[in-house]
């Protein structure tokens, strides 16, 4: 390498001199230019010849096959020819550079034109400029548990499981209108546990058109996350976003045995008022509400004409940066369940919620509480209370965390007691460690100790969660 250094330095200096002279060629006489050119050419050719000769001798000395030697010699010769051509015309190098520069400029100009075209219409986009952005989430889990808490479950105590395969799509229809869809492929046990068919369920979790009027008014029409608490509208299906392996039990999905409604179809208005001292965010939704049981969806129609209304306020005080807090309330009339003789009456459901969240730098502190009030109209009133508190602290790529889950179901609540799921009183401690393996892949290892009704369960879990 070092033996090439000196010639290379000479070549570079020579080329620089030639280039410089070419640029300012009009300032020296033609005769002087030719004399200088010939001198440099002679010197340069001499150096190159010596170098090539040395290299050829070394090549021939080695015991490599003759064909390889031949090809090497040809390669050196061809390099020599190229350099020779450049020496014959010292302006060639400059021309090449100028050509490269011209190509670069043309490419930049093309990019610029493209950008201009994209924005020339201002508020709107043409078909050619409209883009569909598809992102997604997935996760794979492994778990061991020492006790099986479900009554109808016949699964073993250690297993691998596929999480959700979540496709998230957005597209701008104009600068103020956009489309959003989240479709989840879920791998479930299936209702018939004996056959173990494990069907893949395709759920349209969100499908909406968004109208962005201004800071104070944003309208979503379609199926969306309900504005209840903090976790439901923030993380929802993106398991990779959330610190822990699983959602808190109180905000678990309806079709996984969660007590709260999380998605619904209707209209939602939201906005932010940036006031002196604090930001005031609000969201209000009018939706079809719950079906006759905990898992029944009402995306296409509504069994009763009574709509569900949810309202949330979220305050961000400026004096406490990173803090968010506020209440939420949800009102619905749950229709009677014609398939269930114990559910002959409508139930009035009111859910009160509150959240306090602190997320800044390395700290994540989340806490929420809910009270679910079910009134059967015929006299029975049932209250369920639950919540969670979660703390996490980031240290470089590691994020240790702790969470406490608590749910106290009302005995004999007809809505929960006549469901396909076991709604068990829960007191659960979870500790875990999240590690950012890469920008879009997180590994989570956690241990949970929980009391579900009168059963104690220990669970060790591992998850790899990713976004793509």
């Amino acid at each position, binding site marked *: 390498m070092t033996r090439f250094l000196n010639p290379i330095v000479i070549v570079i200096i020579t080329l620089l001199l030639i280039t410089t002279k070419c640029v300012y060629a009009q300032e020296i006489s033609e005769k002087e230019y030719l004399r200088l050119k010939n001198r440099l050419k002679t010197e340069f050719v001499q150096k190159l010849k010596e170098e090539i000769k040395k290299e050829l001798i070394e090549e021939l000395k080695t015991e490599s096959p003759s064909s390889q030697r031949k090809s090497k010699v040809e390669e050196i010769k061809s390099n020599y020819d190229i350099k020779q051509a450049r020496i014959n015309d010292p302006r060639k190098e400059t021309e090449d550079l100028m050509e490269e520069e011209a190509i670069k400029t043309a490419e*930049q100009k093309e990019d610029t034109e493209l950008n201009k075209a994209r924005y020339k219409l201002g508020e709107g986009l043409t078909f050619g400029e409209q883009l569909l952005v598809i992102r997604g989430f997935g996760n794979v889990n492994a778990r061991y548990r020492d006790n099986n808490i479900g009554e109808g479950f016949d699964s073993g105590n250690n297993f691998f499981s596929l999480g959700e395969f979540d496709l998230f799509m*957005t597209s*701008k229809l104009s600068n103020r209108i956009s489309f959003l869809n989240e479709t989840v492929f879920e791998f479930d046990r299936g209702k018939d546990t004996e056959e173990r068919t494990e069907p893949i369920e395709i759920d349209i979790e969100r499908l909406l058109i*968004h109208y*962005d009027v*201004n*800071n104070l008014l944003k309208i979503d029409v379609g199926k969306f996350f309900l504005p209840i608490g903090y976790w439901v509208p923030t993380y929802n299906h993106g398991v990779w*976003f959330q610190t822990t392996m699983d959602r808190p039990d109180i905000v678990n999905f309806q079709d996984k045995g969660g007590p709260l409604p999380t998605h619904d179809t209707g209209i939602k208005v939201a906005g932010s008022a940036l006031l002196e001292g604090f930001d005031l965010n609000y969201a209000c939704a009018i939706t079809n509400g719950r079906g006759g049981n905990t898992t029944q969806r009402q995306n296409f129609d509504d069994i009763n004409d009574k709509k569900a209304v949810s309202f949330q306020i979220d305050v961000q005080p400026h004096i406490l940066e990173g803090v968010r807090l506020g209440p939420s309330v949800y009102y619905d009339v749950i229709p009677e369940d014609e398939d269930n003789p114990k559910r002959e009456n409508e139930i009035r459901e009111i859910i009160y919620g509150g959240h306090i969240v602190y997320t800044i730098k390395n700290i994540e502190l989340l806490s929420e509480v809910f009270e679910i009030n079910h009134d059967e109209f015929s006299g029975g009133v049932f209250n369920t209370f639950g919540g969670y508190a979660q703390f996490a602290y980031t240290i470089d790529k590691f994020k240790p965390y702790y969470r406490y889950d608590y749910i106290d179901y009302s005995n004999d609540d007809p809505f929960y007691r006549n469901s396909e799921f076991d709604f068990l009183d829960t007191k659960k401690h979870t500790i875990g460690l999240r590690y950012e393996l890469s920008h879009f892949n997180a590994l989570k290892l956690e241990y949970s100790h929980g009391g579900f009704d009168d059963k104690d369960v220990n669970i060790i879990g591992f998850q790899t969660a990713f976004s793509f």
Partner: protein
Amino acid sequence: MRLILITAFVLGICFTKNTYASIAVIVNKSNAVSDISYDKLKKILEARQQYWDNGEKITLIFKPITSNETRTLIDMVYKIKYEEFDKYWFLRVYNNKIMEFPKILNSAGTINILVSKIPGAIAFIGKDEISRIDNINIKVLRINGTMPGEDGYPFK
């Protein structure tokens, strides 16, 4: 002698402050705003304020995350790790708080053109790059009444 060197080295590390890039905030010339408070700029950067007072939608334009300018903003405003900058915006798109990611552009030339073409655009470039902007269509914003390089300017 060795002890002195080690002590000097340790003290050097202890008292070395983060060096921030000097940032200029540029907007389209048609924008009525010429002077902005730091608090308001922070709200814009965090996408809490998504519209200018005249109703024009704000388009955020950053240089790549590897640039000194964007890293300075992450340190001073977002207060998150550099690697979490993408996730920060992804979560906002996922929550439907914003309609699209901010624009990340490499070249000051392209930033120049976009800001000159988008009435609501706001971009963050190096102070040294001010001389290269299109003065006919772009202007540099004052922050709390100060221009880049002046006393009291927050990004210096």
